[in-house]
């Protein structure tokens, strides 16, 4: 056991050396961070400025540049957990189905009779009343031709809509398989839109993750507050251009079939009854910029894609003199009168904006609308001061704990304590190297995990040293005592650390945010501490034993 083959020695030293190399960037945190930022900018295709070149040159390219990410609680920033109301989309899908159902049934007017949409249908279903109930089977067969198969793992042969009969009504609902598929699409779309909006705002290193079935976690370091982040991601920003039926004073007026009544942002203007089907939607926009109207008030100018431009041109040329509404998230932001046909495909939205509002609206329009509304479940803001305090306090605590443990070990075990301390230092180095390599995030509880690792890392050595003492007391010679000490302590070390590792993995699996950070440092700390305690100290002890060949030892 005391004989180390050369390859094993080399391997141990190589691992320690690699640990040093990969942990090193963290000692020059700001320099390396700037270097990485400059590289990331270059990758995006930004032209290199002199400043960026200097930042890039400050850290040699051949050295590793992986850093331990600082968590929000250490760096400051905002954390928001939102839920996407995926069911919102179902109704839109059904609404979009209606014109097709109407057209296909009208083709068979002779057998089916009159076709009418039941406006009082419950949420989540489309009800169509037909004149001739006897032709129901034919009508359902016709509507069924509109449905498409859903490709899914579970429901083989499922179609996207379920069509059923209820008296003289055809009931169309989304099938369960399609709901699942729709939810998934909605989530992917929402993630993409939120990512674009956060990117447009130009913040660095945001984390945007899907959590569970219908949640999204957004973490943005360096942003002032969660509220600021929410103004950016919280709005649906669904923009449509609708035909105005008439302007009314009260929200209780009957809007009529296919119309809806919505308020104006400007309270003095009351309410508008508009046609529900928009002329053009915000998804047809290719660009939106902050601008000013002819009176110098902030506004947003926009440009349509060719399809949007054609639709908009056609509508405006046939409705000169009419009002049309610019609707954002179910509120009319303005309802100008069409003066002339707008054929160029571009226009300007005026309203009572401040400059911030118009800038924000432009960002939202460029990034696109969220497919569904979102609800905020959790929001957290950490000010940069608190993060800095936590780092400062954590550092001091770690140093004090480290020195305390070092001194205590030397006092208790003399030279062997020094060996254990060398191993302990390598333990910390390896831990930081691993954290940097996997790009883990260090949180405040993570620092606590490291400090705790410090205390517990010596446990393996304590077990071994105590065992060696025992063997010495039983009259074994130094080499033999050391050999048996390592051998016999191993099973206790393994069992003791595996149990802690079990706790750490459960923490990792169940925990969220900072708790997870703690689990990562604790778990990795266990792995590195077992390595350094068993192999590094043993190697040191063996080297010392070979060089000195002591007749007696004191542990």
């Amino acid at each position, binding site marked *: 056991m005391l004989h180390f083959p050369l390859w094993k020695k080399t391997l141990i030293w190589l691992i320690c050396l690699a640990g040093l190399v990969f942990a090193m960037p963290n000692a020059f945190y700001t320099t390396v961070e700037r270097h990485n930022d400059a590289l990331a900018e270059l990758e995006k295709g930004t032209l290199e400025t002199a400043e960026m070149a200097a930042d890039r040159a400050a850290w040699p390219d051949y050295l590793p540049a992986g850093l331990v990410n600082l968590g929000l*609680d250490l760096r400051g920033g905002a954390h928001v957990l939102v839920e996407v109301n995926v069911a919102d989309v179902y109704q839109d899908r059904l609404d979009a189905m209606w014109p097709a159902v109407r057209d296909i049934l009208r083709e068979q007017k002779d057998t089916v009779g009159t076709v009418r949409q039941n406006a009082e249908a419950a949420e989540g279903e489309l009800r169509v009343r037909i004149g001739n109930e006897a032709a129901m089977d034919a009508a359902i067969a016709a509507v069924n031709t509109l449905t498409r198969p859903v490709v899914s793992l579970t429901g083989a042969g499922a179609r996207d809509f379920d069509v059923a009969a209820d008296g003289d009504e055809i009931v169309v609902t989304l099938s369960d398989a399609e709901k699942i598929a729709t939810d998934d699409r909605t989530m992917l779309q929402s993630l993409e839109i939120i990512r674009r909006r956060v990117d447009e705002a130009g913040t660095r290193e945001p984390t945007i993750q899907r959590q569970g079935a219908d949640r999204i976690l957004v973490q943005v370091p360096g942003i002032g507050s*969660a*509220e600021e982040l*929410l103004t950016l991601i919280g709005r649906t920003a669904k923009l449509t251009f609708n035909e105005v039926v008439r302007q009314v004073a009260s929200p209780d007026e009957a809007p009529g079939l296919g119309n809806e009544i919505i308020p104006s942002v400007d309270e003095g203007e009351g309410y508008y009854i508009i046609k529900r089907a928009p002329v053009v939607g915000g998804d047809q926009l290719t660009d939106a910029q902050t601008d000013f109207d002819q009176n110098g008030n902030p506004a947003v100018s926009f440009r349509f894609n060719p399809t949007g431009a054609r639709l908009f041109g056609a509508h405006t040329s046939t409705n000169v003199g009419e009002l049309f509404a610019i609707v954002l998230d179910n509120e009319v932001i303005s309802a100008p009168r069409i003066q002339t046909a707008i054929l160029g495909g571009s226009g300007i939205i005026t309203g009572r904006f401040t400059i911030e509002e118009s800038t924000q609206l432009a960002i939202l329009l460029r990034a696109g609308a969220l497919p569904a509304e979102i609800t*905020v*479940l959790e929001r*957290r*803001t*950490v*000010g940069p*001061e*608190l993060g800095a305090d*936590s780092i*400062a*306090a954590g550092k*001091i*605590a*770690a140093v*004090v*704990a480290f020195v*305390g*443990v070092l001194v*205590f*070990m030397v*006092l208790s*075990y003399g030279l062997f304590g020094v060996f254990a301390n060398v191993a302990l230092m390598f333990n910390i180095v390896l831990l930081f190297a691993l954290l940097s390599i996997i790009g883990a995030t260090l949180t405040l*509880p993570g620092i*606590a995990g490291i*400090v*705790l690792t*410090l*205390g*517990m890392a*010596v*446990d393996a050595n*304590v*077990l071994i040293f*105590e065992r060696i*003492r025992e063997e010495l*007391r039983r009259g074994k010679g130094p080499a033999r005592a050391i050999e*048996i000490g390592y051998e*016999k302590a191993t*099973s*206790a070390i393994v*069992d003791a*650390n595996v*149990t*802690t*590792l*079990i*706790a750490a993995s*459960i*923490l990792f699996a*169940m*925990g*969220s945010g*900072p708790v997870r950070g*703690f*689990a990562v440092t*604790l778990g990795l700390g266990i792995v590195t501490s077992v390595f350094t305690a068993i192999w590094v100290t043993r190697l040191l002890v063996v080297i010392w034993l070979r060089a000195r060949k002591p007749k007696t030892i004191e542990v």
Partner: protein
Amino acid sequence: MRLKLVPTVTNIDFFKNAKLTIGFSAVLAVLSLVAFFAMGLNYGIDFRGGSVIRTSTPAPVTVSQYRDVLGGLGIGDFSVTAVVDPGADLTSTNRHAVMIRVEQESDDPETQNDLIADIKSALDSEISDITYLQTDSVGAKVSGELVQAGVIAVVLAVFAVLFYIWLRFEWQFSLGAVIALVHDVTLTIGVFSLMQIEFNLSIIAAILTIVGYSLNDTVVVFDRVRENLRRFKVKPLGEILNQSINETLSRTMMTSVTTLLALIALYVLGGDVIRGFTFAMIWGVIVGTYSSVFIASPVLLRLGVKRDWDKDDGAAGTQYANIDA
């Protein structure tokens, strides 16, 4: 001269007062349960929902000044506590911080948002140079799930460990370790409800670490018991347990002290944000060390151990005794 926490060779009879120590633990456990059911835990917003705002001012501002400002807003139940952090002066991070806790008014995120905006604007106008170190809001929906996830995590951890020890030792060991574990967790929850220290997500993390640590200790003792059982085939179990605890006592104390050393540094200097967490850990290390000696082993003694599991193991008691499945 070496520093020794315990004499080189000890021969303490740990079971002499077994009735006393077990009774003591039982009383503490009952007290913990009473405290838990009578007083409940001081749940943080992670588990109860609501908002917490942590403010900072260049000069001290009294809590009653804050109360006066907030009292006029009509924001429902709120509490204001000054953050007392003796370690902050040592690490020069004293910011005269104050924590404002506001109950969940409604589940509507907009209302909650407005509430925070109202509080901030009122404080801005009344207290000069105020800054906001932290603003957290958790909705009722999430907080309910967090409670569930926390409880599941602790239960899962206990069962995983039960299984692992059963695999490595015998079921009696496993039961002994888990009873010790339940004892530790109960006492930790007891001290949190008795002292009304805020119980949040990080405390769950602390409890899970205590589970790991306490086991660590228990397993080291059990490992030695297993070895001694093989070496001394006819010695009564009580003597073997005592001998094993005595033999590992020096290590138990050393590890507890080094861990406590690190934790106390963190408790005093690590800042107010993780103080509850480190407190739970310190308490857990003390209780965990105690329980592996005074709970796990007596339980094992009471349950007894099957002694002839390695009849055909001719190498028992030799250097390979520890290498088994």
